[in-house]
């Protein structure tokens, strides 16, 4: 079995460090020699147009992966998925494709059978071509026992952007908000499940009720009247505190 490194990305640690810790614990049970790298892939720099700076930063991350002697990078962020695919010397796998292969922690399977919630699934627009990821997410939701539905004509390879992409939020917040609201309107049910923390932030901003897939896996069972988790990503202080906390949790989980 090839050696693996897990990369939680940026948004997930800033949103919910416990989820990061829980994933690592689960992965380590199966891959005892797992490594973990928490670092940005540089995508924002690239999106802004700072080509040289991006190259430099991304090269640093590839170095980190290599230093772990890993042959496979497992990523929880769809931007990382695409950015890392550009690097050489390792293979990139999405966590969402991996989980159906290795299974969820046994005690969590079927935990939400009694929930009255029907989740609308939001696919990240950056991975429209990754059918395996779409299937994986639906598999997870189902494995947990939740009911789910796709926004008709706007799922999978036809998914619409959540409004966060391209660094538009700081540049043109008005446009970004309109895109966010439109995406929320696509969903046939009130409850939305996403697999990117930034997408979740977008939908909360637009007045939607959204959960990260890992909230469903590791958090309490969601019922119709359960409020969505708070929007920590919109609170910079909390977000950075979380990111730091995540770093600490990674360290202790890896000990």
């Amino acid at each position: 079995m090839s050696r693996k490194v897990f990369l939680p990305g940026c948004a997930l640690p800033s949103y919910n460090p416990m989820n990061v810790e829980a994933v690592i614990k689960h992965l380590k049970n199966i891959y005892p020699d797992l490594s973990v790298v928490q670092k940005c892939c540089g995508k924002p720099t690239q999106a802004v147009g700072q080509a040289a700076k991006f190259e430099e930063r991304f090269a640093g991350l590839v170095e980190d992966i290599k230093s772990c002697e890993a042959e496979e990078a497992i990523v929880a962020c769809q931007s990382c998925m695409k950015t890392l695919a550009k690097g050489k010397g390792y293979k990139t796998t999405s966590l969402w494709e991996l989980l159906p292969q290795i299974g969820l922690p046994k005690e969590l399977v079927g935990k939400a059978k009694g929930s009255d919630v029907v989740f609308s699934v939001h696919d990240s627009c950056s991975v429209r071509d990754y059918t395996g990821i779409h299937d994986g997410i639906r598999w997870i939701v189902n494995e947990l026992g939740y009911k789910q539905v796709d926004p008709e004509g706007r799922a999978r390879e036809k998914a619409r952007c959540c409004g966060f992409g391209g660094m538009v939020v700081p540049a043109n917040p008005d446009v970004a908000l309109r895109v966010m609201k439109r995406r929320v309107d696509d969903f046939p049910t009130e409850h939305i499940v996403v697999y990117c923390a930034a997408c979740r932030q977008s939908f909360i901003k637009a007045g939607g009720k959204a959960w990260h897939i890992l909230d469903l896996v590791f958090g309490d069972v969601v019922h119709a009247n359960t409020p969505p988790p708070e929007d920590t990503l919109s609170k910079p202080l909390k977000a950075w505190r979380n990111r730091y906390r995540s770093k600490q949790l990674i360290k202790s989980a890896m000990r």
Partner: protein
Amino acid sequence: MAYDNSVLDKAREIAQDCQGGHLSFCSARCPMHTDAMGYVNLIGENKVTEALLKIREVVFLPGTLGRICAHPCEDKCRRNTEYGQPISIAALKRYAADKADDEKLWNTSKKPATGKKAAVIGCGPAGAQAAIDLAKEGHDVTIYEKLNVVGGMMRVGIPEYRLPRNVIDFEYTYLGKLGIQFKMGVEVGKDISFDELVKNYDVVIVANGAHKGFVPPIKGSESEGITNAADFLRAVSLDNKSVKVGNNVIVVGGGDVAMDCARSALRVGATNVTVVSLEKKDEMPASDHEQHGALEEGITFHCGWGGDEILNADGRVNGVRFKECTSVFDADGRFSPAYGENKLELECDTLIFATGQVVEDATDGTLQRGGGGRYSVDKQTLETAIDKVFAAGDCAGGTIVIEAMALGRKAAISANRFLAGQDLKADRDFKMEFHFESTLDIPLPEDAQDLPRKYTNALDPKERIKSFVECDLGFDGDVAEEEGQRCLKCECKKCMTECIMLNDFTQYPGEMFEKFLKDGDIEPLVAYSCNMCDQCTIVCPEEFKFAELFGAIRREMVKANNGESPMPGHKAIKMHQRLGFSKFFTVVAKGGKK
């Protein structure tokens, strides 16, 4: 800002190939480019006044055209080419006019007076359109019209049961509101000489139509009781009570004019009306709609026969012998009928030839003329051999009302350039001055279905042949709305339905990048409002990758801005990214090495 060639090349490709500005099939086929898609859809949304205003942006005769336009747009309508069931575009136009037209809505604005004088010969659609366009440019326009009524062939050719005269009169009041002067009952060449007009005006538009009918020189054609379509229909139009026909009428001809003659003959007292055409039934040029109307009214057809001899008694026609026509056109497509041995004899007491009309000279021989008596003109500009004289409409090559209007507009554009001392051809978009084949190449909408065309209500044939009252009753409101909703909305702009931000900056990307190339730059906010989500690319038939292009533009903007984003909001990202890579928030935890 100077951009890299790779960016400029991409922008050029988009400016050139983007289909966003391509006209719909219907609108491209309309010589005036009426926005059929636009008004059809507004009617579908029950926004009838908006629809009427959209029509009136282009044509001043919505009620008239809605009734009698030959509607070439419907041939090219995608619902016709895909399913053989075109949108009833013309009938919807009439619906909008009948329901919502109101002179208070008319745009009578004009440019400041230029002091230049224009004379227009003829008050048909070509002359009227030229007069309108010149008046709007601020020129002083006078129309010289031989008859005492307005409308040209629409008035004295097209019968009243298809086009009530009050509709024409009402719509022509628009010209008066623009300050256009009328000299009615003045025939140029008789009551005033053409030279005089040329001398007294800065420009002259000749639009006297084709009003001379003829009787082919076959044996017996000098008999009494024979007439031609132009004379017959003019007489019927000006005073139908004064027109006398026999019980048995034969109309020779296979076009819509023949149908008009036949159906009018019924209404002025004939009991048996027979149409005899050279063409076989399925080759007859008359529209299906008119043939159908004639059949319903009990008119008989004999198709595939040519006149051999007119039979007479005491100098009066009493029948016609026809010979079988085996083919109308020769191998090269030229009109050259060939005949067989078979003969057919039919009795009649009135014989009408609807075999074409030619142009009568209104210029006292000043202008050169060619086939059909039409004036020799430069097809692009409609200029004649005399500098200040332009010709338009049927006398310059048109065949239907909407073409006459487009030619009237073309002549006005040329005349206006001439008056301004400009070159007649430089930087002129000739393509837009007449119909063309739409270059739209887009897939059918995913949910498109073959839905049946809706038809208007018509008067009972038994009732309607008793008078000249209008046959077609038009659409009921709910039917019109449904018909409007059948439109397939043939435009590209697919990206515009997917991308929110593009709509804030442009009508379609082709326009945006044309401007970019012209200005040499683009607002940073545009490039930085792209979510890089590729939604545009998914739907674009050209698969343009705007995320990539905006990304490339951003990189150039950063380069030109000392490595920083030009967007003030991105200052925070800089900090964010610095932290995202800092030791404090990152960790590399190597496994399996304890």
